[in-house]
């Protein structure tokens, strides 16, 4: 054990001497390792950060919710575009069918996109995305309020002109004043603000970002727009499973309920698509998988070049030290001691290259994070991977030179 500690010391000194003695050569050789580690770890870290961000947004929505649309999410519409677009919009009667007939549904809500509308208040005006919703929408999508309240059942039923507005909308038209209870003008109608939705911030992809949106009740929406004539992506029926109901059971009952309601014959295809978030996450997984692969391939080639150049340094280093290796053998150093010594030197060189790479990754992530206003993190796991990879590269590039050194004939080696 002591012997190995001594050798560790010695190898660090050798590696250091190698670096200081041949700065340019070492720099060029380590560049490959540094670039490789940089590519791989920076891509993996960026993807991990993005994924983290997106997944946390998705997680809030829960995995027990189904979304009924005209178009399926996880399919390129290309071929079937016309087929899908000819389907009837989801409407209030679909919602009522689901709402009243289904056993497995815990709650359901219909949301209809009314579109961009201008809101006016005092001298200020702003454009906001208006969505008309039925009851329970806020529960299913876990929408949190900054202030105020959501619509009451009464307001839903009577279509009272009330609005729950997004954080940015509130900022834009009330500029610091308290919006609750105030009246805004929407398409000539006076609407009372009853709640403000919490800020979502700068999440990259967030399906529930209402910062620039306004929610109104479905029945009020009918007064300002024809909700049955909206564009194809505008309506969505959201169904959340009841307690201890599996998503499969929910999907089955939802399908049969909608088919029955729409009076589809047994051989007819569904004229609606039932989507779930896992479909989206599958697409994202593929996307991130490709991104990761690109990073690994590019970084892999850089590392391959790095392995050859470090192996080359190690060969030169072993050749230069032939005499010393011979002396050590004469003094009783075994093959394994010499093998360990050379291997360790190579590992140390690669670790230095890898750690420089990791420092660059850290810097790059900070920079990207700063510009995107989005948290980019270099996790401990990634650092661990980077370091392990460097060690592996060190072993790969040092193993052959180390064997060459260990197998030298002491008689010839001492002569140099």
């Amino acid at each position, binding site marked *: 054990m002591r012997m190995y500690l*001594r050798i560790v010391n010695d190898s660090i000194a050798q590696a250091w001497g190698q670096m200081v003695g041949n700065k340019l050569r070492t720099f060029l050789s380590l560049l490959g390792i540094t670039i490789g580690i940089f590519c791989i770890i920076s891509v993996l870290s960026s993807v991990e950060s993005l994924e983290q961000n997106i997944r946390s947004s998705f997680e809030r929505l829960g995995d027990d919710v189904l979304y009924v649309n005209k178009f399926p999410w996880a399919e390129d519409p290309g071929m079937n575009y016309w087929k899908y677009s000819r389907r009837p919009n989801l409407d209030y009667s679909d919602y009522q069918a689901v709402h009243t007939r289904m056993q497995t549904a815990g709650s359901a809500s219909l949301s209809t996109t009314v579109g961009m509308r201008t809101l006016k208040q005092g001298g200020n005006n702003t454009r906001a995305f208006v969505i008309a919703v039925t009851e329970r929408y806020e529960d299913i999508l876990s929408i949190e309020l900054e202030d105020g309240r959501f619509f009451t059942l009464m307001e839903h039923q009577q279509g009272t002109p009330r609005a729950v507005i997004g954080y940015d909308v509130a900022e834009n038209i009330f500029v610091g004043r308290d919006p609750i209870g105030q009246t805004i003008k929407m398409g000539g109608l006076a609407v009372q603000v009853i709640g403000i939705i919490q800020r979502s911030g700068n999440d990259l992809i967030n399906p529930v970002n209402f910062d620039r949106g306004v929610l109104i009740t479905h029945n009020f929406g009918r007064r300002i727009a024809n909700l049955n004539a909206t564009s194809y992506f505008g309506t969505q029926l959201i169904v959340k499973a009841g307690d201890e109901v599996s998503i499969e059971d929910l999907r089955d009952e939802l399908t049969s309920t909608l088919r029955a309601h729409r009076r589809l014959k047994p051989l007819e295809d569904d004229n609606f698509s039932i989507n779930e978030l896992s479909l989206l996450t599958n697409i994202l997984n593929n996307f991130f998988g490709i991104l990761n692969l690109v990073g690994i391939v590019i970084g892999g080639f850089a590392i391959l070049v790095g392995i050859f150049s470090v192996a080359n340094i190690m060969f030169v280093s072993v050749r230069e030290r032939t005499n010393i290796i011979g002396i050590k053998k*004469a*003094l009783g150093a*075994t093959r394994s001691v010499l093998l360990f010594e050379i291997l360790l030197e190579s590992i140390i060189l690669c670790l230095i290259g890898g750690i420089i790479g990791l420092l660059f990754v850290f810097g790059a992530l900070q920079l990207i994070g700063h510009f995107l206003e989005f948290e980019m993190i270099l996790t401990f796991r990634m650092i661990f991977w980077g370091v392990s990879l460097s060690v592996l590269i060190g072993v790969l590039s040092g193993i052959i030179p180390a064997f060459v050194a260990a197998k030298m004939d002491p008689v010839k080696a001492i002569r140099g």
Partner: protein
Amino acid sequence: MIGNKEIIKTKDLFKIYRMGQLEVKALRGINISIAKNEYVALMGPSGSGKSTLMNLLGCLDTPTRGTYILNDYDVSTMSDGELAGIRNKQIGFVFQTFNLLPRLNALENVALPLVYGGASRSYRQQRAEEVLYQVGLADRMDHKPNELSGGQRQRVAIARALVCKPSIILADEPTGNLDTKTSLEIMEIFEKVHIDGNTIILVTHEPEISEHAHRIIKLRDGLVESDEKNPTVKKLRDLQVS
């Protein structure tokens, strides 16, 4: 010397090198026996096989045929790893070109064999200081080889050879790179080392160096030509003391 334990015993030692079709018999049956605390000079012209014999005696190489018993170990059949252990424990090398490690100071150079032997740090320190003191370099312990004179470097090398208390000290032309005065200094140290009870094998082609040994073995064409006591051992310490 009679009654002293036999340290080295070789029987029909052959070393044959193959160079393509050509077979070169460097050693053609060497039979020698060296007892503990002998001071032997191994002489011979170049091509006589003395370097080959020294490599075999130093366990740096293995014989093609024959047996070599070193301090009761049959080293002629040992594996590479076992030989490394034998070199570490049983043999102290002194080379013509000193062969110190340039990056280590005198003390670290001397302690290196102990590192491979697995000795504790405190013992290494203490033992290395002890032998450096013996060769008169107590004040140069932290000097790197390039800060030492040729004679001082060779003394460090002798200290390194002694540090593991080996069975034999194998010195290959130890004065070959030194001037006459320094050579005498080194030979004086060998004499002292011999008096301390060590077994020394001195490989040389210079008659004036071999005169210090008590027994001279001459090789020629891979065979022992003569093996006799040196009737006129040159003593240096007496001269110095007077």
